[in-house]
């Protein structure tokens, strides 16, 4: 019996979110928890991880699965050349999803497991294509009984065009702060009353402004972005970060995605890690491993190319 069946199917729909980000939707009836990812291939060389951003159509129709993809290199460029109806192949969902209040497991820190949904006041902070998986998370939080007004979303990016999913979050009644290093219209940087608006700055700066009543932070994005949030959180705030590491097998055997020094596999024990796990990482924000397994320092990397 095969545990891990592959599904090869036509793309049901492609929606352009920004010039470089598109949401691909597939007719696939699987249980997908927020933070989990799929491996996607077109059988033309390359199979890559993408976080699940939704599992229904806007009209509420179930049995769909969406991922929002940023055009970066060869593989994603090929995807951007595809049309609805073209065939791709998916395996997954994989990985340990985000925590949902009221549903603790043995890994949930005690203080968090006691929070009732009604008292849960999380910030969902995503950088670039890190934001879409937080949209599925937001839906699940609402379903679990967390009031929309308790939740705040921060979308961060280099420019305004990188601020994803504003409509989707506000559509759920969740205030959305866009934080960009450069804004097209600087005057758009309004006051963040109600946590809604734009700031010309980083995710961390946005968090400082809106996190006053926050008791939990979910973040998803580049290591450095996530790391920059920690000093801005009120003391002792528990959090979960969604990690990216180079993925090959996605089923926990090749070791490509393992973090140092504990060997936590991002494809299995992650992508969502708890604060107590994050605090033990030595590689976090310092280096990543490339496809060969070689260590690449962020310093050197940033000197070269920046993709946040």
């Amino acid at each position, binding site marked *: 019996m095969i545990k891990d069946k592959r599904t090869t199917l036509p793309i049901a729909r492609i929606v352009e979110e920004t010039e470089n980000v598109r949401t691909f939707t597939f007719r696939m009836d699987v249980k997908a928890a927020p933070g989990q990812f799929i491996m996607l291939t077109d059988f033309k060389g390359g199979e890559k991880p993408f976080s699940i951003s939704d599992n229904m159509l806007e009209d509420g129709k179930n049995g769909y699965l969406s991922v929002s993809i940023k055009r970066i290199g060869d593989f994603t460029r090929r995807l951007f050349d595809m049309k609805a109806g073209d065939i791709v192949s998916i395996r997954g969902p994989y990985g340990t999803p985000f925590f949902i209040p009221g549903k603790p497991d043995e890994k949930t820190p005690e203080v968090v497991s006691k929070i009732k949904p009604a008292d849960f006041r999380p910030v969902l902070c995503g950088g670039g294509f890190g934001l879409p998986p937080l949209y599925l998370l937001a839906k699940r939080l609402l379903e679990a009984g967390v009031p929309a007004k308790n939740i705040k979303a921060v979308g961060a990016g280099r420019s305004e065009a990188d601020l994803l999913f504003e409509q989707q979050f506000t559509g759920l009644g969740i205030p959305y702060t866009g934080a960009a290093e450069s804004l097209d219209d600087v005057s758009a940087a309004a006051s963040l009353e109600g946590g809604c608006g734009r700031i010309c700055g980083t995710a961390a700066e946005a968090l400082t402004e809106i996190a006053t009543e926050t008791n939990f932070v979910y973040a998803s994005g580049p290591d450095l972005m996530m790391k920059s949030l920690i000093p801005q959180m009120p003391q002792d705030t528990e959090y979960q970060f969604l990690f990216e590491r180079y993925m090959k097998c996605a089923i926990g055997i090749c070791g490509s995605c393992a973090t*140092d020094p504990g060997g936590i596999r991002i494809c299995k024990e992650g992508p969502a890690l708890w604060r107590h796990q994050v605090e033990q990482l030595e590689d976090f924000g310092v280096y990543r491993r490339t496809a060969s397994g070689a260590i690449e320092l962020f310093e050197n990397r940033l000197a070269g190319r920046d993709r946040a």
Partner: protein
Amino acid sequence: MKNEIRTEFLGVELSSPLVLPAGVLDISFSSMNQVSAVGAGLVTTKSLTIESRKGHDGPVVAEVEGGMLNAMGLCNPGIDAGLEELKLLKTAAEADVEGPGNCPVNVSIFATDVNGFSDLAERVNNSEADFLELNLSCPNVMDEFGVPLAASEKTVAEIITAVKSVCVKPVIAKLSPNVTSLTRIAGAAAEAGADALCMINTLGPGLEIDIEAGRPVLSNISGGLSGPCVKPVALRLVYECRKSGLSLPIIGMGGITTGEDAVQMLMAGADLVGVGTAVYYRGPGVFGLINEELLSFLKRKGLESITDINRII
């Protein structure tokens, strides 16, 4: 430590006969340290080459009935970076007050000719490695490098002779099941001076086709088969080597997933038992689980140690 089954291998004492084979959770010191801590008695590095290799494009794995195909394509950070991980591993293991992470290390190397192997072997001399393993048998880079070296008795003998003449570490030859007679090749390896054998590398290789796309699932088209379904072939080959009179220590692997499998492998004639793909089915904790299962078998049968079942069939 409670689940210890102390075993001697080439003069080194191990806390368990279970081995992490090349290619599974062994790119970074962290993974190797973790596997050591949960019960492996010996860990092997990913096969290291002179230059770093990013490996094949994905998909690199495909689950099939009874096992798995993989065509990682020998991704590795290169010998120098690989040996750096060994340093990190030793530091990490020593830092671990609980201690069990501190197991011996087998460094696997891959090259395409005699000089390549000698070159790599020399670099391993001055490392923390306890053993050197020659991967003569990778089936996943045939497009690049042709038939595995382990297909020829002559080549195998040449490489081992050359490596033995430069290398101060005990040398383990890793053999391929995809040959007409592995027993003959094992004999040649023994004669050339190998200190131990490791068998089997992945079987086949195999091909899986996605019928909706009309395309091979793996980007490399084919990939080596591992996991439970290769166990009978691995057992037979180990057994036949013993029957042919081979007395070298053998690390037996291929599909070992449970304590029962490990007992079978020991009975067939292996001295240590590799556990790779089972990590997929039972998680990295599989090493501890198999140690427990092995111990409880020995206990139930009233046996003292695994030497009581070794080579008994």
